[in-house]
């Protein structure tokens, strides 16, 4: 599978983003859960409309919290959040909930009800655009089975359309969750480990599909990734997160092996008594983390 070149507008520097009315940003954001250390601390980031960004970092670095904060699912303890140009926590809660239908958070393991059929699990991504009455009707007879089939076909699971979700393998479930994103109308896509259960070929293909879709609808795409090689191969901008803080926020070309080793540093130290000496070996270790 070839790596499609990203359009120039996506790779542009953030110079003109400040004036973008659809800017999403975090400004000095801290998130602390009751009775534990801050999951995010002093995080300031800008995401321009249509930008595609990968967030990498060791487990527990705060990738999920960052995505959920950007998706109005967590209210920050301190600092300011802008989502698609708006301040979610200054809005009346009905307006906030309407804003939520313009963004899509894809959790790492898609929580699909086991008895639900795949077609309904996918169309659940369109439900926010429907009236409750239509949502009910669609349960009796799918309103847009064609859209669900089309979305599933992008991830090569269209033959599962009328199966129950508990008949799916882990990788198939993950792809059904991604198909849900395709039928949504969201303009800010926040994906948490979207391809963690897929083999390398499928993972690359799925990520490519998601990026093309985001580009086609002019949506901002922020992806939390464990696979550093995939992040380097497919994203023009990488954000390194460590212990809830931004370790680096750089274009792909400036992300050096040294930076990566530093990002995952403690993990390597714990994993091995003697750190491997050659760069090649170190990169391999990073890839399997």
């Amino acid at each position, binding site marked *: 599978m070839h790596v499609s070149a990203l359009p120039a507008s996506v790779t542009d520097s953030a110079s003109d983003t400040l004036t973008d009315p659809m800017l999403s940003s975090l400004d000095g954001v801290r998130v602390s859960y*009751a009775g534990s250390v801050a999951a995010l601390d002093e995080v300031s980031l800008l995401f321009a409309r249509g930008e595609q960004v990968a967030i990498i970092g060791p*487990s527990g670095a705060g990738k999920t919290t960052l995505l*959920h904060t950007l*998706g*109005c*699912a*967590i*209210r920050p303890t301190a600092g300011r959040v802008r989502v698609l140009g708006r301040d979610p926590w200054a809005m009346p*809660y009905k307006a906030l*909930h*309407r*804003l*939520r*239908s*313009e*963004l*899509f*958070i894809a*959790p790492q393991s*898609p*929580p*699909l*009800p*086991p*008895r*639900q059929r795949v077609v*309904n*699990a996918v169309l*659940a*991504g369109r*439900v*926010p655009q*429907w009236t*409750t009455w239509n*949502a*009910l009707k669609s*349960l009796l007879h799918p309103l847009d089975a064609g859209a669900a089939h089309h979305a599933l076909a992008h991830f090569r699971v269209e033959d599962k359309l009328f199966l129950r979700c508990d008949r799916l393998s882990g990788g198939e479930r993950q792809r059904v969750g991604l198909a849900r994103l395709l039928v*949504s109308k*969201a303009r800010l896509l926040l994906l948490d480990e979207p391809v963690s259960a897929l083999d390398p070929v499928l993972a690359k293909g799925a990520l490519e599909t998601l990026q093309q879709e985001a580009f086609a609808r002019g949506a901002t795409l922020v992806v939390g990734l464990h696979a550093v090689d995939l992040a380097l191969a497919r994203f023009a901008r990488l954000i390194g997160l460590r212990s809830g803080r931004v370790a680096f926020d750089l274009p792909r070309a400036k992300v050096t092996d040294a930076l990566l080793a530093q990002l995952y540093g403690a*993990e390597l130290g*714990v*994993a*091995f*008594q003697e750190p491997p000496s050659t760069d090649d070996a170190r990169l391999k*270790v990073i890839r*399997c*983390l």
Partner: protein
Amino acid sequence: MSTVVRSVGPAPASLRDPSGPARIAWTIAAILILIPAAWLAEFNPATLMGEASLRATGQFLATFFPPALGLDFLELVARAAWKTVAIATVGTTLAVLIAIPFALIANRQLSVSALAEERMCFSCAAVRTGVRWLLIALRTVPEIVWALLFVRAVGLGDAAGVIAIALTYGGMLGKVYMEILESNDARTTRALLVNGASRMQALLYGTLPVCLPELVSYTVYRWECAIRASVIMGFVGAGGLGMQMELSLKMFAGGEVLTMLAVFVALVWFADLVSAALRRWLG
């Protein structure tokens, strides 16, 4: 997933289960509460097996044979049984209609205001607490007390039984629906809510696919209980098989009682079949 092997850190100071003492304490407390409770309830297996009670029970049971099988009586029983089923069915249907909105209002998992913050808004919490109290009030009053009340209000007959079942069972179903819906994996509904789905939509696409069989099966079980309850309420004049059974008991017509008990077993068995069929279908 990481495949590297981590070196083991320093061992914790103590490997003792921190919740162990609490578990032992609660077990002892439960036993200490049960013993005086059995004493208070005057539960003594010896009295049940005493000579006098065995003789009295035996004499009563002896009048049960043979069962009454006269054609006129069977017709009467059939009509009464049909009435009992009708009371139970209408009562349970009304109870479901009472329970559904309350269960939805009180469900914390579907709260949009509690989505991103640790507390939900004050007025939302107040409404939910109010609904919980209302459901408690509805089911605290036993159906037979409601029946006695409504026999005075609407007169002897089936209507009193229907209303009594609707109120008590509305409270019970509301509570159990609420608990079944809240026992669902919260991540399924949360994933929909954070992407902008409304409360009802999250219920339809996140909760119901998981909970529907359990809801239906519990409702059918309650319908079975309602059949039993409508028999009991017949004793206070709320119509159906119970009214007939009370007459027969008063006249010491044991054979008639046995026939009605047999019909009764058949009814419950039938309810069980319906429940099993529905579960298979929704499976």
